[in-house]
């Protein structure tokens, strides 16, 4: 068997770095330049807007715009691909099932006709779903953890929750590394299936099983870590800060809606109006 572990390993490492870049390298991301509250409200608006459109043309324009925005916000290609693949396969499955049912019941136009009809009928819906997923992905992955937490805090989300977001960002790479180590450690002690089957499906099933098994020890290790973290938080005055007005002010003091935030919001709305009127 000629195994191409080299290629697979490089892709795993590359995917890891790409995801990390999405989550952590926000310096140049377009959406990171605005006030976090504006971005949050903006994304809330644009999750709703597509539902007011029913024609493919304006929706297509929005899809293009949202993809452009995602590109400018340095969203991971892998994540985008995964998302788009997810909505396409989801819809594709619906098309397939409904067409088969239609054809089965003797509808006119045959199977091919049914697939075409159904695809066209579901196209707007697919595009709506894709637009809102791309928009929210772009918004949330572009904002730095600090900005995101700040924005949510000022919009009234409780502090323990916004802290959890920042802490999640802090720990994610560590956990990713630990998880990878655990999977590797399991691999070194397991026996892969002797014949790997068509397209090596047995081998991939075996890897999948190991990846699931590795979660349990990881959860355990996380629980162990948190013992020290809780103690340390106490010494850093976290519970003291919860009711402390001065501390809250320090945390939110430098938030300010600038002209460029307003411009961003206005331009986006203008775009929607143009799309609604002309397309």
């Amino acid at each position, binding site marked *: 068997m*000629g*195994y191409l*572990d*080299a290629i697979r*390993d*490089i892709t795993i*490492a*590359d995917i890891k*770095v790409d995801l*990390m*870049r999405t989550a*952590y*390298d926000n310096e140049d991301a377009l959406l990171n330049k605005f006030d976090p509250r504006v971005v949050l409200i903006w994304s809330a608006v644009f999750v709703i807007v597509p539902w007011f459109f029913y024609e493919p043309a304006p929706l297509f324009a929005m899809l293009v715009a949202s993809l452009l925005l995602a590109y400018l916000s340095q969203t991971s290609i892998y994540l985008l691909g995964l998302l788009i693949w997810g909505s396409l396969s989801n819809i594709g499955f619906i098309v397939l099932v409904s067409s088969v049912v239609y054809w089965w019941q003797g509808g006119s136009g045959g199977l091919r006709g049914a697939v075409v009809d159904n695809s066209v009928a579901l196209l707007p819906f697919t595009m709506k779903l894709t637009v809102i997923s791309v928009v929210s992905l772009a918004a949330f992955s572009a904002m730095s*953890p*600090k900005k995101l937490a700040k924005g949510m805090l000022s919009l009234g989300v409780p502090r323990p929750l916004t*802290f959890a977001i*920042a*802490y999640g*960002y*802090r720990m994610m*790479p*560590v956990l990713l590394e630990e998880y990878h*180590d*655990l999977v*590797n*450690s*399991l*691999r*070194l*002690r*397991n*026996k*892969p299936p002797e014949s790997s089957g068509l397209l090596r499906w047995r081998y991939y099933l075996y890897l999948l099983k190991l990846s699931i*098994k*590795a979660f*349990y*020890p990881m959860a*355990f*290790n996380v629980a*162990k*870590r948190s013992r*020290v*973290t809780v*103690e*340390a*938080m*106490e*010494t*850093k*005055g*976290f*519970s*003291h*800060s919860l009711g*402390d007005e*001065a*501390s809250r*002010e*320090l*945390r939110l003091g430098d938030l300010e809606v600038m002209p460029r935030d307003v411009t961003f919001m206005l331009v986006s709305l203008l775009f929607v109006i143009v799309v609604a009127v002309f397309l």
Partner: protein
Amino acid sequence: MSTTTITVEDLTFRYPGSDDPVLRNANVTIDSKNVTAIIGGNGSGKTTLCKAFNGLIPHFFNGAFEGTVTVGDTVTTESDVSALSRTVGYVFQDFENQLVQPIVLDDVAFAPKNHGLEDYRTRAMEALTTVGLEDAADRFIWELSGGQQHLVALAGVLAMDPEFIIVDEPAAQLDPHNARKTYDRLREIQRNSDVGVIVIEHHTEFIADYCDRLVMVADGGVAWTEPVDVGLNRVDELLDADIHPPQVTQIARDLPDGDGTLPNGRYPVTVGEAVGAFPTDTSERSHRATPDGRGSAERLINVCDVTHGYPTLREGRKTVLDGFDLELYAGNRVALVGANGTGKSTLLRLLTGLESPDHGTVTVLGDDTNDTLPEELAEETVYIHQNPEEMFVEETVREDIAYYLRSRDAPEIDERVENVVEFLNLETIADRDGRLLSIGQQRRASLAIGLATDPTIVLLDEPTGSLDLESRREVTQMLSRSASKTETIVIATHDLQLVAEWADRVVVLGPDGILADETPRSVFERPELLDRAHLRPPQVVELSDRLGVDPLSLTTAEIVDRLRTEGVQ
């Protein structure tokens, strides 16, 4: 700044749910004009005592508390943890989990912000400057090395302008080079700003070099408080608590007729003191070239023209090994040493096949790792992870040892597991959950998991990292024993004492590849080489170098022998 004092009077504390108190009538006074070391055996109550200084005891752990602890004018029971932490900062042994924000500057500013201090940014920047990390302010915590993370934790404590800093076992999680850097900082901070520094420490050699006073905790009480040089002379009491006095002190004690004592009758505690006190051998030095460990034995591992790296977030692909060649033979006991980032761990992972080289070939027992699954290579080659926690996936150590055998349907599993458990004296921990053991026990158990597979080659990453001396000795013994069961053992390590006692071939890695590939003795004879690799020889080697003992002595027994015979002349 004036001196602040921590006073502990008749402190008794029992953790909730336990029957016996950890501390019983402890009394001690520590003031801020010293670097104070707190020592004691495992479970003697050192950490508990220190956690009483910043109010974690009794405010966070509500056990049965009697007696009084006073910091300056504040009685801890009348204050709370966050208020006390402004005066007494605490750097945890597990410092990585003390850092809770993604970005360095935010983490250092976290406590000042929580307390609503408006100058939080200035405080954080000043603290970072004090620990020498001002350039890392905007970096992500996870991008930093362990040593740098420890300094961030320290800066986070300094940002509150405390009067005391407690550092729990800095040398346990850091390699010796970084531990020394941390101690240099701590001492500097104490001298420049009169902030009291309290360290919990096992390594008496650090204590001798950096601390002023020594507090011995034994059986839940404070046994004594002495200046460091006097305290470290109480050799028998230290040994009783499983604490090893500095190598030079032990050597001095073993020399006959008080040959090793200083004019004031004490034993020396640092190499500097010892050089003056010990009988010198003035014979001419002659560094002999020694064979490099390559024998005519069978070649087991061949790393040929390997270039390998990994992608990074900001700097593109980072090459760790470049055009690297190495051959390992049967019967070798190989130590890979070198600074962090020189590719020790990368090399070990390449040998397991978990990573394949970007360029070049790695052949292990005749199998090219490019064409072989790591699972197949693992049948002959065992890899023991630097962090033993990652090796425990079952609920008991025994199950973990059996895991590999079960996955391969090996015959007589129970019997084989039992053999390994017995061979490595693990009976007492075999039925416990591996992840809940102490780090020393975890290391021993992880070695057992490896040996159960009857490997030909054993690869170990930092097997003595973060171990106290007792566990360290046990692991070293296990390594020597395992040699009888395997063909070759390769260890990546910072621990030169282990190298001196155990290895027969040392490969020193530098940023551009192999700096040296020789026997331990000939490596130790080249201090400039060790320096380039960020390594520091064991005290006994440094001592014999400065005394002119030739050839160098690598163990205390060896040097005592030499000084006995030659010192008399």
